[in-house]
């Protein structure tokens, strides 16, 4: 049964697209209040996992629990408790950044005005421009501000810092740390090992649809000098 301690619980999750196996008995547990890193190479199944958690894709087999409930059956109720930054940020080209932030916030159940204002300032984002005129980095900021402006228990971020410059990357990290202080849970899928190392309490590494390791960062550092050494070791085994 569902454990109160876990926000996300995944056991032996399988997802097939036709004959292609995207997830093959994948396991992951995200505890309440932790920043959980989700690492893996391109095509390993990170975005697929996240989309199953969001109830956008239907699992083929296994167990998935979000806040102890089935995200496929109860996606709509569960979505009031989370905010999502998609891996492929693509919003409506003729709406402005400000309109998109308000719209997604409202559809999620409301956003925190103070946060919205603070985040726009910190990320130095002009909300009056049409989405299609933003640069890659600014598009990413729209998605980040839209998600982080909501006061929800869980944030699911799929490669949220792609396209951000180092200065903005630092601001992002500060924001995640303050979320953690507030007791929020964050699932952070990322390519950037230093970002994961700097922010995360635990890390799940996925490869070819399977979890190859699930450690706290402290455990991990005992065995390996740093995350990078560990990550690479997982891929040099075979």
């Amino acid at each position: 049964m569902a454990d109160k301690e876990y926000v996300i619980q995944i056991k032996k999750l399988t997802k097939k697209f036709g004959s292609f196996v995207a997830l093959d008995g994948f396991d992951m547990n995200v505890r309440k209040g932790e920043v959980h890193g989700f690492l893996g190479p391109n095509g390993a199944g990170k975005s697929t996992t996240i989309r199953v958690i969001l109830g956008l894709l239907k699992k083929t087999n296994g167990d998935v629990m979000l806040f102890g409930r089935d995200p496929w059956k109860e996606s709509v109720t569960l979505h009031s408790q989370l905010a999502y930054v998609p891996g492929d940020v693509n919003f409506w080209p003729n709406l402005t950044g400000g309109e998109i932030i308000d719209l997604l916030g409202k559809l999620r159940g409301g956003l925190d005005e103070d946060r919205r204002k603070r985040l726009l300032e910190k990320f130095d984002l002009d909300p009056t421009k049409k989405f299609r005129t933003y640069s890659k980095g600014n598009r990413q900021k729209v998605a980040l501000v839209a998600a982080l402006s909501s006061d929800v228990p869980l944030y699911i971020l799929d490669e949220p810092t792609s396209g951000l410059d180092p200065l903005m990357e630092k601001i992002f990290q500060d924001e995640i740390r303050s979320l953690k202080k507030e007791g929020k849970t964050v699932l952070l899928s990322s390519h950037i090992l230093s970002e994961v190392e700097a922010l995360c309490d635990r890390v799940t590494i996925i490869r070819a649809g399977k979890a190859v390791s699930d450690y706290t960062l402290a455990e991990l550092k005992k065995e390996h000098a740093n995350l990078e050494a560990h990550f690479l070791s997982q891929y040099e085994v075979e």
Partner: protein
Amino acid sequence: MFKGFLALFRLILRRDRIKLPLWILGITTSLVSMVPLLKDTYAEQSNLDALYGSFARNAASLFLTGPMDKPSFGGLMTIETYIWWGLAVAFMNTLLIVRHTRLNEEMGAQELMLSGQVHRHATLTTALTTAVIVNVLVAVGIGAGLSSLEGSWGSGAWLYGFSMGLFGFAWAVIAAIVVQLVQSTRTANGMLAGLIGMTFVLRGVGNVTGAVSADGILQPSWVSWLSPFGWLQATRPLTFPEWWPLLVPVVFATVAVPVAYWLLGKRDVGAGVLPQRKGRARASRVLRTSLGFTWRLQRNIFFGWLVGSLAMATTIGVLIPELDSVYGESESARQLVESMGGAGAMVPAFLSAMISITAIMVLAAVAQGMSKLGVEESSAHLESLLATKLPRVKWAVLHMLIVLGGGAVMLAATGATIEVFVSAETDIPLEAGEYIVAALTYFPVLALFAGIYVLLLGVVPRMASVVAWTLFGYVAFMTWLGPFLKLEQWIMDLSPMSHIAAAPAQETELMPLVIMSAISLVLLVIGLVLFRRRDIQTS
């Protein structure tokens, strides 16, 4: 100015290898095929005389189609084709230039090309050169086609072609300036469509405020010279051919092309000369509701088709006074109208047929509106929406309600427009709202189509729009051309339009409407259930 020209030119040919031939062939063949079609319908001189009698006086038809200069086949061909094909040629040119200049910059392709051995002006040069070639092909195609079919026009057939070609190039040049001004492809295309519409109206105003000269030809007022459509009309190729007005677009291009290059030289790559307008920093109250937001995504489609269907209804309304004189005397035209609109008095039968034709336009609006569902999903917008509290079914139903609501409004508006003309221009007895109700009897077809689309969305999401447009093509073909082709009844019956009695000429039958509505409801429910159970398509 030319460095990189050949490579860029080959790129255009490669990218447009299907699009441009289709435009050119479509415009020329459809125009040329109007010759036998019109000859068949208006075979007798008495028809032409009757048309001439009414079209020379009628302000509304002067505004829309321009003056009919003389009661000849050339005069008829001019009012039936010249301006309308001009519209198509104008759009072909503006879209061509925008696609190969501004769109390149918006996609970032321009930046990449300019980083190579390419002069910063080369893209514009290449696009304009392509436009020249395309317009020459159109001109020659039209000239050769018309002169081979109708010898009596002599060199006028070629004048028709070259007027069209130079008119087209003038629009390419206008587009070349507009793309320097604004930053987005959408704004550029929108502005150009607006200019086309505006200058079309200016020419109409010029005609209405014009005066008949001593030789009995209507001379438009000076306002017409402000419009490329006025330049086009001025050559009168099939009635009183004049070659000198061709100089106007030539002079215009000579002045305007350097302006385009000058503007291009003044601005940064990717930027526009005009400052970017600021948008709203906050979402309006309406946009914050899921209904308001869906409306925002649908409204451009709605307004575009509303304007189109009202223009069509107005054109039909303008024709009403001419009906008895023109169609009444032609047996083949009478038979055609009766096969579409039912036997009986000429005017109601004709209008009933026309209502079914405008209903097809509204059906196209429904097809495009429903296709938005597929677009939202494939462009990953849906993924962001469904990660909020918005339920899948609600998302689909909201779109469908707006599309069908819009369709009902369009049907009612076209019916009302036609009714206004009937009551103003004829003494046919009329029940209040008769034509509005008649147009609305086609609503179940719209609902059926929406139901089919939702079913497709549930079963074959990636194919839904293609299948839907193919179905639309079948229905449109059967309604518009089926009666001409004398097809087997069962082939016609496959189209839902065939099961709706052409009101008000025919008595409305309720049964088919009820059955169609019931079927669409069943399809909708099955479609929604399947949509709820399937994966959301992701890239």
